[in-house]
């Protein structure tokens, strides 16, 4: 039996091509069942996310499976033989799947969302009866591989975007963010994204101060926060734990002179300052104040870059780990179906 994979991803196709071939959620399972009725395809599974559309199939011959999958896709969305598509037969198809579930093929290296998406796709196909012995075994193995990769390597370590670095730092300072108050100075897009990331972690309240009050009110309404007049931000400061600056001011808005007396009213609570503005909103010397931790856009980006570098260094370790599982799965596949009544002990990787 062969495992094949025909698909496209963000590596091979731009978004306008990916969206043309995307399979809607409600059609994923029925399409997979339909695929199994094509000559040459025994089992099938379809994964369709914003970054990839992939058809997996178990077949006696990979050429027949390729023809069947191509015909199936062509009938629905157009010619799949264009450059945007890739085709893998075993063992490369198996290796590809293991890399995908482990986040090695993702746009953000090491991200874990893909694992959930693959599990969902598998559950849909399995529930519809489109998968059988081979794809069941393959995907269960794939999920184990993803877990092993995550546990035994640093591929998911650290945060790799400015927003997520800010959230991680906030959690290293305050622990749970449920009691934290956030203040945004300057209602820009970047500050909105960062505050959104913090809000997703359950911060208690968000204040928005902007030179144009209407814009502050608009963003505050969107985020479920409270708008305040820009000149009055210091009045609400005693409650604030995380201060985000992203104004268009040519001079620092938050200076040592202004912040030092305000810090005295905070009763030793730390203050996390996130400066997303260029020119910067915070005077650099603010970081020297007791209990103040200032990160500008460059320092956040550097941390994200370092985390990404760590992840990239881990790729080779992940590939080695995956290769071992590919070989083991290949052996299982080559052994073929077991005669009834025989017993074969589990290999280590199949546990």
């Amino acid at each position, binding site marked *: 039996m062969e495992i094949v994979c025909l698909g496209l991803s963000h590596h091979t196709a731009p978004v306008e091509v990916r969206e043309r071939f995307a399979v809607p959620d409600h059609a994923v399972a029925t399409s997979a069942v339909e695929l199994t009725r094509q000559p040459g395809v025994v089992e099938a599974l379809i994964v369709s996310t914003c970054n990839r559309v992939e058809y997996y199939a178990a077949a006696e011959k990979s050429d027949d499976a390729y023809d069947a999958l191509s015909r199936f896709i062509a009938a629905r969305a157009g010619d799949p033989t264009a450059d945007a598509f890739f085709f893998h037969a075993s063992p490369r198809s198996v290796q590809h799947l293991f890399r995908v579930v482990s986040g090695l093929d993702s746009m953000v290296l090491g991200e874990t969302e893909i694992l959930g998406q693959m599990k969902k796709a598998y559950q849909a196909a399995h529930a519809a009866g489109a998968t059988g012995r081979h794809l069941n075994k393959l995907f269960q193995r794939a999920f184990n591989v993803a877990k092993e990769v995550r546990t*035994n390597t640093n591929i998911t370590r650290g945060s790799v975007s400015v927003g997520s670095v800010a959230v991680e*730092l906030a959690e*290293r300072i*305050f*622990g749970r963010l449920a009691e934290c108050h956030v203040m945004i100075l300057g209602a820009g897009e970047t500050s909105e994204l960062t505050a959104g990331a913090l809000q997703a972690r359950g911060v208690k309240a968000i204040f928005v101060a902007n030179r144009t009050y209407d814009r502050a009110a608009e963003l505050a309404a969107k985020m479920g926060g409270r708008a305040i007049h820009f000149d009055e931000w210091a009045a609400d400061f005693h409650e604030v734990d995380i201060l985000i600056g992203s104004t268009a001011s040519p001079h620092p808005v938050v200076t040592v002179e202004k912040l030092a007396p305000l810090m005295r009213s905070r009763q*030793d609570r730390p203050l996390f300052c996130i400066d997303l503005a260029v020119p910067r909103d915070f005077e650099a010397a603010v970081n020297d104040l*007791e*209990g103040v*931790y200032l990160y500008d856009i460059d*320092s956040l980006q550097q941390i994200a870059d370092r985390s990404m570098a760590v992840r990239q260094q881990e790729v080779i370790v992940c590939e080695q780990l995956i290769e071992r599982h590919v070989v083991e799965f290949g052996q299982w596949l080559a052994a073929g179906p077991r005669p009834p009544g025989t017993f074969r002990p589990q290999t280590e990787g199949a546990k």
Partner: protein
Amino acid sequence: MDRLFLVASTFCFLLGFACSMHALGARVYRRSRLNLFAIAGGFGFQTAFLYLRGEVIGRCPLTNLFEVFIFLAWAMVLFYLLIGPAYRLSLLGVFTSPLVFVLQSAALLVPGLDKSVPAKIVVNAWMELHAAVSILAYGAFALAGIAGVMYLLQERQLKTHHLRSIFFHLPPIHDLAVANRRLILTGFLLLTVGIAAGFAVGGLASHLVKITWSVGVWALYGFILVAENLHRLSPRRGAWLSVVALAVVLSTLWGIRFIDQGTV
């Protein structure tokens, strides 16, 4: 027989320390359960030692410097086991194990520390209370010092933006500040009881050096507490002071016992 328990306990803490160092040095950090088991095992052996020793001498085993070291180490581990899970300070074990290991190794290896004491001497309940509660207080202060070290490590990384591997495994800095403050408060209250019990024993003139020292330590920690509560001392300075105070206590304990030849 009791020393065998102590040797076993010391090896447990060495194992716990080695596990923690291995986990921290490994390419991928994984929280080691073995460390917790080693510390719990070490604590069990410590408790067995103290129980047996107490049975033999017929009183709280705090009759010489050897026993003081072991009791202090036991108190530190007790506080670690009590507050570690509450504050998710699993890494506290990484820092506690080596200190306990050093204390117990010193107790075992330095000759003449374990001087035999007269069996079944007259037991004074105030004296027992004074000694036991005071050492428990020092155990809490030791843990506060360790939490202080962790705070300073985390604080430095946050300030300089150089986040090393350990940064991702240390507890949040705010939690460390709270743990540090509460441990100091716990130790201070225990020491207050210990000193009060010491005054109740009487015979103050013969232990003047030790009394002065104890009151000095009490005043030092009292100052940290008051200054922190009045917000005159930042968490960072509080952490520094708790580390310095611990160093002072540990480095002078020996000398004070030497000068003050009487039992605790």
